[in-house]
């Protein structure tokens, strides 16, 4: 009996450690996100002292009046956008990886970004050839033009995928349909590119680079609630997501309505990925890497810990990538997608090679 109770003490200690790890990870990430937020506001083509950043945030006078404008008018919307987009893509990635039980899926696997690309391509590339009607539309929408076009494309794709999800039983079928739709839509974009003029192609390519800088204070009130709703929906789906870790049959046996859970997860992810793509362009990599990094940090796939962790880590990584893309102290801005992939890919590859657990996580 002695060894028995010893084993139990040892076991409860290990359990406590696992639970402790969750609060440590979350607290550390929260602090890091706050710190990074201030840093992003301070660093750029012009450096603003941290003291002045805090003053500007609190609405007090800064040592130089220009600092307040730089921080609140230019850097703040950008930082908030990065924060929101990072959180959205990471949570979307977690949901897709759980739903499809596949470590290589990202929030765009359902073709949402392809749909958005087509929307943007239609507006940017076809303007010259289809005449005034589209131009009038853009004119009416003002600086919402690209975002509106992308949202429209993403939403159309979402409706198609949802109608498929309603009909098909197999989650694998849905994955393949999503991928094929993505290819088909990309092909349409290629055709548009082929028949377009260089200036417009350049404009389209600029959009595909991705940027957090295009979102103004006028657009944030649209982006933020969309992402808020997507995140809230995701948190409401914690139970189905956890049940799906054991597979669909087990989930069903535990009282989960599979059809409803599936639609909820797809809707939430499409909302998150669609909103980000519409306002920031197709930002790759974050959505696939951050969920894995979060699992490694937590050592659990329990979504009650995983979703908040991915949210914070996604925000952190997005802000970091944006910081690097702006090349502090210089006047140039590098393509965001190049930064996320260039820095992120080797890091993730290294971690995956070292971490047996991650591969185990998907029985790969």
């Amino acid at each position: 009996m002695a060894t028995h109770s010893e084993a139990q003490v040892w076991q409860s200690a290990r359990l406590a450690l696992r639970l402790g790890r969750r609060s440590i990870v979350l607290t550390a990430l929260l602090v890091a996100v706050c710190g990074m937020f201030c840093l992003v506001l301070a660093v750029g083509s012009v450096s603003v002292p941290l003291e002045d950043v805090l003053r500007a945030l609190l609405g007090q006078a800064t040592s130089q009046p220009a600092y307040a404008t730089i921080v609140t008018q230019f850097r703040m919307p950008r930082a908030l956008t990065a924060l929101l987009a990072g959180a959205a893509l990471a949570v979307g990635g977690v949901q897709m990886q759980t739903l499809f039980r596949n470590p290589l899926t990202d929030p765009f696997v359902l073709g949402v970004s392809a749909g958005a690309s087509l929307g943007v391509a239609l507006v940017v590339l076809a303007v010259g050839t289809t005449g005034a009607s589209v131009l009038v539309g853009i004119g009416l929408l003002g600086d919402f033009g690209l975002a509106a076009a992308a949202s429209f494309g993403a939403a159309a794709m979402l409706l198609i995928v949802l109608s498929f999800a309603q009909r098909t039983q197999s989650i694998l079928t849905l994955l393949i349909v999503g991928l094929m739709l993505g290819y088909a839509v990309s092909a349409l974009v290629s055709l548009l590119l082929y028949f377009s003029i260089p200036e417009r192609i350049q404009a389209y390519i600029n959009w595909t680079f991705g940027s957090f800088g295009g979102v103004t204070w006028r657009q944030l009130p649209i982006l933020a609630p969309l992402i808020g709703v997507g995140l809230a929906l995701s948190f409401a789906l914690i139970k189905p997501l956890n049940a799906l870790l054991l597979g669909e049959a087990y989930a069903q046996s535990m009282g989960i309505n599979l059809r409803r859970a599936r639609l909820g997860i797809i809707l939430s992810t499409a909302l998150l990925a669609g909103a980000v793509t519409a306002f920031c362009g197709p930002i790759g990599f974050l959505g696939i890497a951050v969920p894995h990094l979060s699992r490694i940090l937590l050592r659990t796939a329990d979504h009650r810990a995983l979703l908040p962790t991915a949210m914070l880590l996604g925000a952190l990584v997005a802000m970091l990538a944006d910081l690097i893309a702006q090349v502090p102290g210089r006047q140039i801005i590098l393509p965001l997608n190049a930064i996320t992939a260039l820095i992120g890919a080797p890091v993730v590859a290294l971690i995956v090679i070292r971490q047996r657990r991650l591969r185990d996580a998907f029985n790969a």
Partner: protein
Amino acid sequence: MNQTVLTAQQLSVGYRAGRGAPAVVLRDLNLTLHSGALVCLIGQNGAGKSTLMRTLAAVQRPLAGAVFIGSEDVHQLPIKRLARLISVVLTERAQTSLLSAYEVTALGRLPHTDWTGRLSETDRAVVDWALQAVGAQALAARPISELSDGERQKVMIARALAQETPLIFLDEPTAFLDLPRRVEVMALLRRLAHRTGRAILLSTHDLDLALRSADRIWLLDGNGALQAGAPEDLVLSGAFARTFASEGVAFDASSGTFKLCAEVRGALAVQGDGLRAFWTRRALERVGFVVREQMSAPFCVQVTHDSWQWQGVRYGSLEALVAALLNASADLA
């Protein structure tokens, strides 16, 4: 104890494919499951074991008839209510292994928790009890990827226990286990049925184990009928032998085991008793001799405490004895 938990009335199971007539796998079944009893569902591949289990668990609709738990028709119940009545252990492996055995077991509490899935004190107590009931409390903090097949199966059984349902269905719970683990899991399930009062139904290919462990057996004959009864009744009625009769294998009712029908080489008798005599008989039967009680001296094998004697020659091992017998089998036939 031993109340009726589930009844199936005039149940026909099978598949509706397109517009044609449905493919009936089993027809007109009248079945009951009692609390505190372990029932083993056996039958050859394709006899309809999983179709029946799926229909009873309300995963699949019946072609005719109905399944009741108490007075409730399971196929009319909302899925949330069903999750409080039936829990399952499937052959499907959990994909993620970044969950600890404790977390997997705790997932069994899903039908009982609020929308966040947070565990209350009661939930934690139930999870602890379930892990203890299967003897897996020492595994609680280990990731399920690190567990052996047998340990993992115990945790999946603990998860089903934690769901606190009067019925537990298990789809071939012993399929991927080695022999000692099979015996262990079956003994565990039998104990759980008797001690926790749950009605446990499992499908299995381990006939020998089912005969020894089950309180009742549901035997599918492969022609759409099901015979239910105590294992021994089914053996005595010959139902077992008929169901599993096939070329080269025969069910031996006297030992309750299956025998390979080797070519008959002749008859012999074994003199001696105890373990050595038992295994001597097994060896002779294996190579195709019929073992009788009494035979004349040339057909008699004597078992001594350290060797075997046949026709005046001593053999130090059964291998040597069998070789000699096979050499002489033309004379023995």
